[in-house]
């Protein structure tokens, strides 16, 4: 034992005294006083901070990037996403979700959905104050509350959003912004959507009471996030803001076929067409073409290839897995199986 008896005890006292006195002179949580007085003060969140997912739209909520390819639903480890693809009155499937539910009580905030999304449609939000007064229905986030603008995305994650914008070359729908101007954000929103990116931090200084602060926080997210939601879940026109034309017919014209060297082109490569029509268009073509026609025509790379590449791989026997076309679901799987069995490749 070194020193006199009790030396260790006295040294301990010295350390605690130093911390005690230091805590009164600590300057902004550097050293000795580490409390954030929540909810008046909040820790500034780093840019990468991730909590629950949200869906990004460019311009208006109708211009959401999500095409209901269901890759995120497949890859989500705890299976918290539920997607139902929308269809037009004739039953033709559309490239957007009718139902997109995320059960945030199941979501484990891993971010895998955002990583695998081929369209940069689903990204991770940083809002963690999501507690509700119920445990079941209240904790399921439905489509309207998940839709947040690209401006919001730039707001919370500027570097990442810039990178995403720079790499986004694929355009699935024409921007109806020409037809209907995006609604002007109100003054409160405009004040927040300033050029210098802010992080969600403490409420402004002139909001004083607890209730006002709480309301500000709730309003903050909802003002920025969803905007004036007009979601035509039915074809009935809801007369609030000018409606863009339903994008379905436009999608047919816009689906850019990949570089294909086949003579005769690929008329089936249109995700607006249903399976029967596509098979009809491809019926006299080679095995690879027919296989390609069976797929969902999204080039979403859910299978790991684009549609042409997957078809070629199947035809050449490189892969035998017919279950990879996630957007195509069972009908594609069955058709591929049938085709391959007929060709003796399965």
């Amino acid at each position: 034992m070194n020193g006199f008896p009790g030396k260790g005890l006295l040294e301990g006292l010295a350390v605690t005294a130093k911390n005690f006195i230091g805590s009164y002179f600590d300057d902004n949580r550097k050293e000795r006083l580490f409390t954030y007085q929540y909810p008046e003060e909040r820790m500034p969140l780093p840019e990468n901070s991730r909590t629950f997912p949200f869906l990004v739209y460019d311009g208006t909520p109708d211009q959401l990037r999500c095409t209901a390819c269901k890759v995120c639903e497949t890859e989500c480890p705890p299976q918290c996403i539920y997607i139902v693809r929308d269809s037009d009155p004739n039953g033709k499937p559309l490239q957007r979700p009718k139902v997109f539910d995320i059960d945030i009580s199941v979501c484990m905030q891993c971010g895998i959905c955002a990583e695998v999304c081929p369209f940069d449609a689903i990204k991770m939000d940083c809002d963690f104050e999501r507690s509700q007064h119920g445990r079941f229905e209240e904790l399921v986030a439905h489509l309207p509350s998940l839709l947040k603008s690209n401006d919001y995305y730039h707001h919370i994650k500027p570097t990442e959003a810039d990178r995403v914008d720079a790499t986004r070359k694929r355009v699935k729908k024409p921007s109806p912004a020409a037809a209907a101007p995006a609604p002007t954000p109100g003054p409160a929103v405009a004040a927040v959507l300033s050029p210098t990116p802010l992080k969600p931090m403490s409420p402004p200084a002139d909001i004083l009471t607890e209730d006002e602060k709480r309301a500000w926080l709730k309003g903050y997210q909802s003002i920025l996030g969803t905007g004036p939601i007009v979601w035509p879940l039915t074809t009935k026109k809801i007369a609030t803001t000018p409606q863009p034309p339903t994008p379905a017919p436009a999608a047919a014209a816009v689906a850019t076929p990949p570089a294909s060297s086949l003579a005769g082109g690929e008329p089936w490569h249109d995700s607006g067409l249903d399976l029967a029509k596509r098979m009809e268009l491809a019926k006299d073509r080679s095995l690879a073409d027919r296989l390609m026609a069976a797929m969902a025509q999204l080039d979403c790379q859910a299978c790991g290839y684009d549609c042409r590449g997957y078809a070629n791989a199947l035809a050449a026997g490189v892969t035998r897995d017919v279950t990879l076309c996630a957007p195509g679901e069972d009908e594609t799987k069955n058709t591929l199986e049938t085709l391959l069995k007929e060709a003796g490749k399965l």
Partner: protein
Amino acid sequence: MSGSGLIQTQRLEVSLGPQHPSTHGVFRMDVVLDGEYVVKLKPVMGYLHRNHEQIAEKLTWLGSMPYTDRLDYFCSMTNNWAYALAVEKLAGLKVPERAEYIRVIMAELTRLLNHSCAIGFLLSDCGAWFTPVLYALRERERILDFFETVSGARMMCNYMRFGGVRVDLDETALAMARRLVARWPSFLDEFEKLITGNEVLLARMQRVGILPRELAINASISGPMARASGVAYDVRKVDKYGVYDRFEFRVPVGETGDTYDRYMIRILEMRESVKILQQALRDIPGGPVIAPEARLRGFKVPAGDGYARIEAPKGELGFYLVSEGGTKPYRYHVRPPSFINLTVLEDMCLGHKIADAIIILGSVDIVLGEVDR
């Protein structure tokens, strides 16, 4: 009734039940006491069993990665690394150099935060009314903030991918890490001044819970617990996985194997981790952070089985994977260090008083997420 000599004593059965004031998780110990001394001790685990291995058989290889975060929920980065290492071994993926350095940085930061937490909780079991815990947690917060800056989440990082890491570290993150590491030696000095020489602590922890060296080897104890008993084995030095062979660091080994040794070994290991971090942050090269052939979706691992292990802060964490060549594992097994280290709890506690049993449990440093999976 048990009679020993002239005095008839009665043995008392105590259940230190799953709701424990000591913060190790839901863990039960059935203890039989003879007066003050522990005569028999049975650890009862399973209160946190979450079917992790079964769930992994239903998920893709990548899908299990967030679940590995939750095994030893203090050390998510090292759990991720062990799993990624196992899959890369089976799939033959080669990890780029920058990613290896990043992995080492994250693992050593995890070691710092785990040990500081473990020591803090051990001391609060000793009764030091949270002061050492809060000092340790204060420093740990900085590391957690760094993890949040890099990977997006403080504890459940989900950061390693097969063939590298998910996100690169940019210059601000590296600067943050350097600042963080620079603070650590002075914090350790202050912490040691507070606690290590404290006579009360010495009286409480020395000669308590001795684990003999032979028993440690036979029971396959690993990690700081084994090294405190004199077993000079550290997976980083033996396997040299990652780029650990490029760093100069020492591994402390104790002699007696009592609680005090386990405590001191952890403090010394923290100092060595700081050394590794300084070297890694200095030498980190540029380059990609993920192997080019790595894929997120439709990733298939060739058929076969394999076991990969790392030196997690609590011991040797291993993953045994059996693949049938598909996108999902056929069998997925975790070798958790805390679980194996707990098997010798009875041997360590026999003959000690009940108050010591708590301290011995604290010095084993278990996390129930790992024990029960």
